[in-house]
């Protein structure tokens, strides 16, 4: 309804506008700058972008996460684990299973999972922001009384590039939702720490996409029809296990046991180059929670890919101050060293996901009992 009505009004307005003959001179600066500034301020203040992109996993993920905190769920809860990740977590980490195992060990804990396939760090940052923004005051109070632990996925592909996969979902509601004016400075600050001068030219496609999405959101292009068509978001599951195997998956040898890998200097130099932006990203992720200041726990999945396994072990050595779970010192590698448990070199199938989740829960129980958490 809004498009034909408002469009027709605009049609008449634009067609009717006629300037006086004095317009031989250029109009004064405020004639164009003032309306532009007023407009941009108005739309960006009064029209929240997050509301208008329903084809993103964000609203559905946040919905299921907030529902988990509803009602009396927070009463007596001592630990709240907020797990974020990409497809490896989406396929391989069963938050509900971890929660029930913790409870079985007498630990009153809630596991909130915000993971989605293809979600890069910029998108996951948006999930966390939207989750925190959606919390009611009583829920925030509940979070204050418990110990909040932010569990962060470690995965080589996503840790190399904060906007990994952007071009695959470029200019869709999914990308546009997390590339608004509020997030772009943060994303560019990560890229500024990642890119060398030459990379700003090499990566022109990604940068043009980012700029395009930013402009699109800054001017709220298509905002009203999108909001008009908006339906209530449906719950999105953060754990969707694989039940089949990728046809191309045919591993040679064993699952890489991280502890046996000799790290190549050339490989690690690539990892080191990504540390500055990752540090900024970690600060930004924690900053989302404001005064809650959650503890951080990193987790990685074993892999059939050597570079990934190298990265995991290297990363575990970097995170000596934080908890880091990659299965080292547990029977995880041995249990997962069966190709039929895997979808491909990185992603687990359902039985594999259950094994990983159980071992992760055991790890947390151990740390809690040892007062490390």
């Amino acid at each position, binding site marked *: *309804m*809004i*498009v*034909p*009505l*408002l*469009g*027709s009004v*605009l*049609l*008449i*307005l*634009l*067609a*009717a*506008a*006629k*300037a*006086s*003959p*004095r*317009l*031989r*001179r*250029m*109009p*004064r600066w*405020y*004639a*164009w700058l*003032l*309306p*532009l500034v007023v*407009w941009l301020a108005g*739309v960006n203040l009064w029209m929240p972008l997050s509301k208008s992109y329903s084809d993103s996993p964000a609203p559905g993920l946040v919905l299921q996460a907030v529902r988990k905190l509803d009602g009396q769920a927070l009463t007596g809860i001592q630990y709240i684990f907020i797990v974020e990740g990409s497809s490896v977590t989406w396929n391989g980490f069963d938050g509900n299973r971890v929660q029930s195992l913790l409870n079985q060990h007498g630990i009153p804990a809630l596991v909130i999972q915000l993971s989605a396939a293809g979600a890069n760090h910029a998108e996951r940052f948006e999930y966390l922001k939207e989750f925190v923004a959606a919390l009611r005051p009583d829920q925030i109070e509940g979070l204050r009384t418990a110990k909040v632990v932010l569990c962060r996925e470690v995965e080589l592909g996503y840790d190399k590039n904060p906007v990994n996969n952007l071009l695959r979902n470029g*200019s869709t509601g999914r990308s546009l939702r997390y590339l608004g004016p509020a997030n772009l400075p943060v994303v560019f600050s990560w890229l500024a720490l990642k890119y060398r001068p030459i990379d700003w030219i090499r990566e022109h496609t990604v940068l*043009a996409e980012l*700029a*395009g999405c930013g*402009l*699109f959101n800054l*001017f*709220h*292009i*298509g*905002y*009203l*029809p*999108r909001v008009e068509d908006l339906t209530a978001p449906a719950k999105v599951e953060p754990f969707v296990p694989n039940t089949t195997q990728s046809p191309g998956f045919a591993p040679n040898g064993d699952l890489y046991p991280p502890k046996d890998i000799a790290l190549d200097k050339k490989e690690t130099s690539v990892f080191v180059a990504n540390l500055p932006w990752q540090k900024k990203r970690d600060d930004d992720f924690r900053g989302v929670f404001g005064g809650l200041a959650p503890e951080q726990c990193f987790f990685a999945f074993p892999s059939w890919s050597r570079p990934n396994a190298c990265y995991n072990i290297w990363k575990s050595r970097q995170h000596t101050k934080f908890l880091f779970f990659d299965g080292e010192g547990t029977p995880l590698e041995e249990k997962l060293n069966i190709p039929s448990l895997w979808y491909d070199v990185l992603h687990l199938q359902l039985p594999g996901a259950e094994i990983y989740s159980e071992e992760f829960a055991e790890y947390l129980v151990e740390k809690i009992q040892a007062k490390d958490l």
Partner: protein
Amino acid sequence: MLFNSGSFFCFLLLVLPTYWLLPSNFLRKLLLVGGSFVFYAWWDWRFLGLLVFVIFSVFLGARLVLQERRKGNRRRALIYLWCCLGVELIVLVFFKYFNFFEGNLLAALQSVGVHALASSLTFRILLPIGISFYTFHAITLAVDTFRGTVDSEVSLLDVALYIAFFPQLVAGPIVRATVFLPQLESKRTLAGDDLFLALQSIGLGFLYKVVFADAIGPLVDAVFQAPAQFSGVYLLAGALGFYCQIYFDFNGYSLIAIGVSRLFGYRLPDNFNFPYCATSLTNFWHRWHISLSTWLRDYLYIPLGGNRGTQLKQLRNLMSTMLLGGLWHGASWNFVLWGGVHGAVLCIEKLIQGRPSQAKKENREFSISFALAFGWVVTQAIIFFLWIPFRASNFPDTLNVVAGILSMRPGGSPAEHQLGAIPWLLLALPIVCDTFVVRSLRVWREKPALNPELAFAILILGTLAVALIAKTGLRPFIYFQF
């Protein structure tokens, strides 16, 4: 690079300020040619060579024609002209019509049982975007040089800019050499009213394209993709949708092209003049795609004989022009049908107009208003039905849509449920508003003029509001395929 894409916005943001900062006309033209090549290569850099070939060939052809004409050797000038036209037409025919001719040849071979040869012949030619428009520009320059309306040596840079000027490169308007080349002689300036009209044109163009045309597009696409699945009402809505969509889409493109050109100080001719007000098909062709219809008149209809000779010859000229005009739009029998029926109706109108009845003259007051209303209804109905073959994928689909509408075929298929309710308001309100209200505003000469600053502010806010209700997702302009 689409006008409605972020990359074009960035491109313009880079080229426009640089253009006005450059000190000399030569450098500005050089920038525009370079920018136009980038604009064209953005789609497919491989066809840049073809564009450059067309530029060089017409530059050389026009030079030779001019030299011979100045020497008074008209016969040799004519030979050079035909050589030049031959080159341009070979380029056009090969890239645009090869697949069509090949497809028909193969069908003919298969129908007589020659399957082996038919299967060994197939290969596809990719249609270079905008080829119909830039080859027409090249033909215009060569013919105008021969006719003497272009009577000076045009530099290679000017020829390149005339052919490749990016706002009109891929879908027109088709600009006459006599209109564009004089503008290249001096450094362009941009006055306040130029900027105002440019922004007004761009704002309206975007409104037409990204608000109206793109909002109607999904309905039209769904209906014409599988017309057999839809009832008469949905087919009517789909056909009405295309009637509106093609106008908003193409007029939107033309207005943006005119507005962007004006930002660089160049004026392009109007391409539309409220065509859905037309009370006859003759009148429609004075209002629709004006740059093409006048081009066909001046470069095809008149050279064929035009209004000279017997009435039969005139009708033949008209029919040939419209058939070729139809075929120009695309290599398909549907376009031939579209052009052919337009031509036939124009011939009928020519015959009727040639013999005004005495009674009509005597009852002028009464009959004019009645005739206008009747003429409008009949004309718009003809235009409406003729857009169906223009949009349908093939002849059976055309028949299916027409039969479905005329018989008001019952429906209720899953495809209709998936499509949802028909947006009648979207199909009716904007086009009625444009045809009647905006036209009245356009012809209202004593319209009060606003203070310059206020007029600008309204224009800026109106254009920003267009962005707010735009349909998201890039839909290419319909005329890009021609």
